[in-house]
């Protein structure tokens, strides 16, 4: 029996594709030139970047290659987009975002709130969906930018960003989407949308860490975050991370070729995994909008046990996943995404995310389906909220601590 470790944490990061690595290697050695240089050393690298830019453009369906701005990561792209919208439209001081964004957006918004900006955080229902009427009501003449993620990193739930961008434009606001989870997993055709800015991160789609993209629609009013040299047409100064950009180009090309595979074969494995676990484990349920989510993501809430303990036991069984539990982040609150969806505390601490990639196999999924039920049973056996046959009656009353 093969018991190599099984990687089901691809929403955290992905393995670099071997073709990506081999395309990058020359740029650490003979192709070391600065793409801005006039001589042949620089020139060759410059052409390689141009080629990579075209591949990113193709995957995103951008109209012009100059709409692709290379950055260092998704977080940089997010910060650039939001701060640019505020700088470029000083007469507008409101940001509309959602309660389930990545910290790259939420922490920045918290900071901007302290600086005096008005932040509107749209809530979600128990399936993680937005209320479009609430969104329409929030839009106004003071809205500088709307930032909503294309797909949620924890539950995989997809937001109607194309429709949201139309509405933002109608209100004269810019629209940004953090699409680091969506790019490469679902088809995107930006030229057919009103989206002004989009963030992507290389390491989520089998490119290396340390490279990202800000898509910037031609004509969108913009102020750079980093000023300096003329790189990226002055929109993001700093010498290009040439090797990683080349790698990202190859990764985008592959993602485009694998798009159908991702939405059929990978999706089927995900569904098989989820169904296999749900069929065997009592008192657990999938979170998010299961009818409208990323094809690779399954987030299952196991009631009355805690996520970090689940992860440690999974890890011992050679399975890598992640959790929305408070303990895995070092904070005392469980995931803000699960809380926004109103998942009760009895389940939120036990949410476990399995995120697949095109490298996962049928036999790996079978091993996970076999490994999970005993782990859950083992932890429930020592949980004060779980009795002989199931959860204790009214867990919050049965277990009455001196403080809560």
């Amino acid at each position, binding site marked *: 029996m093969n018991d190599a470790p099984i990687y089901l944490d691809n929403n955290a990061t992905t393995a670099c594709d071997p073709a990506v690595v081999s395309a990058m290697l020359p740029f650490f050695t003979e192709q070391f030139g600065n793409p801005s240089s006039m001589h042949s050393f620089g020139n060759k690298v410059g052409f390689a970047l141009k080629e990579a830019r075209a591949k990113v453009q193709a995957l995103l369906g951008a109209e012009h290659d100059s709409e692709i701005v290379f950055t260092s990561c998704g977080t940089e792209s997010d910060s650039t987009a939001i701060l640019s919208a505020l700088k470029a439209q000083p007469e507008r001081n409101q940001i509309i975002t959602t309660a389930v964004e990545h910290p790259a957006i939420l922490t920045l918004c918290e900071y901007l709130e302290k600086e005096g900006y008005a932040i509107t955080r749209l809530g979600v229902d128990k399936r993680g969906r937005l209320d479009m009427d609430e969104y329409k009501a929030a839009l106004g003449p003071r809205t500088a930018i709307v930032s909503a993620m294309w797909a949620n990193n924890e539950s995989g739930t997809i937001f109607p960003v194309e429709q949201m961008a139309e509405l933002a434009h109608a209100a004269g606001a810019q629209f940004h989407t953090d699409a680091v989870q969506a790019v490469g997993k679902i088809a995107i055709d930006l030229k057919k949308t009103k989206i002004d800015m989009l963030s992507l991160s290389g390491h989520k789609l089998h490119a290396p860490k340390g490279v990202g993209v800000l898509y910037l629609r031609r004509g969108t009013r913009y102020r750079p975050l980093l000023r300096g040299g003329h790189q990226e047409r002055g929109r993001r100064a700093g010498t290009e991370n040439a090797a990683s950009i080349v790698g990202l180009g190859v990764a985008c090309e592959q993602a485009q070729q694998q798009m159908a595979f991702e939405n059929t074969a990978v999706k089927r494995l995900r569904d098989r995994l989820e169904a296999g676990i749900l069929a065997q484990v009592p008192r657990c349920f999938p979170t998010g909008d299961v009818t409208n989510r990323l094809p690779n993501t399954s987030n299952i809430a196991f009631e009355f*046990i*805690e996520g970090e303990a689940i992860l440690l036991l999974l890890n011992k069984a050679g399975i890598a996943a992640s959790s929305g539990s408070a*303990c895995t982040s*070092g904070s005392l609150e469980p995931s803000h995404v699960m809380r926004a969806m109103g998942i009760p505390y009895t389940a939120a601490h036990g949410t476990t995310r399995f995120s697949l990639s095109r490298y996962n196999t049928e036999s790996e999924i079978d091993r996970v389906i076999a490994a999970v039920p005993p782990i859950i049973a083992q932890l429930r056996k*020592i*949980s*004060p909220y779980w009795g002989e046959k199931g959860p204790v009656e009214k867990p919050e009353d049965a*277990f009455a*601590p*001196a403080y809560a």
Partner: protein
Amino acid sequence: MWDYSEKVREHFFNPRNAGLLDGANGVGDVGSIKCGDALRLMLKVDPDSEKIVEAGFQTFGCGSAIASSSALTEIIKGKTLDEALKVSNQDIADYLDGLPPEKMHCSVMGREALQAAVANYRGEVWKDDHEEGALICKCFAVDAVLIEEVVRVNSLTTVEQVAHFTKAGGGCASCHEGIEEILAKVSKEACTAPTAATKPTPASVAAAAPAAAPKLTNFQRIRKIEETVEAIRPMLQRDHGDIEIVEIDGKNIYVNLKGACVGCMMEAATLNGIQTKLVEALGEFVRLLPAAMLGKAQ
């Protein structure tokens, strides 16, 4: 991934005394499912000797919560209740070869469950006003609630003072933004609170909290400084270090760190800790400086 010791891993993967304990006559419940940590400690106590014959636990929580519970039951088995009550959360952490700072609350919870279980056995009511906030200083495991309380009670206004009083921010300094936010929050409250008018807003710490302390003569003051430093020396010597007082000039006290303390990463933190002790002992604000600064500081 947390940096868990082998001992923590071992107690998590093979917890001792897990599950319901039949015939338990002392049960302590602490934590809640909301916080993500809940522990039920069950004791079987021999009524004649008050010895803990058996101990069991049920825990809802992370790896270190389960390991801390397991360790606790192993530590207290065979002890009398009075002996068991002497077990501190640090004892639990030490038994496990240490816990990451973010996880120290797991050992605190263990100790609280023990107190609750003993109270339950004795027919007493155990009440704890325990409150825990977000962890601000990771070097010394100081949380927001504690910092806020200390800032409020002592009318602190600078990050430096917070470090003197709580140690928070005295290590790697990366939490200073968080401490500044707490200071700003408390100072804003103090400005808007209706009682602000009756409350003196001190210009310095010296005039604030410890102001009630009786004024010492110069001689008493020097003696006090000496006594305080002497009391700390054995601790430093245990780590193969030492300290000597070189000069006392107003609020500046100049010292030499010796032995292992020299060039130690925690030198600044050590000085901060000793300074806190001196501030407490003297009832006035003093600065502890390396002797090399003699004649340079204002």
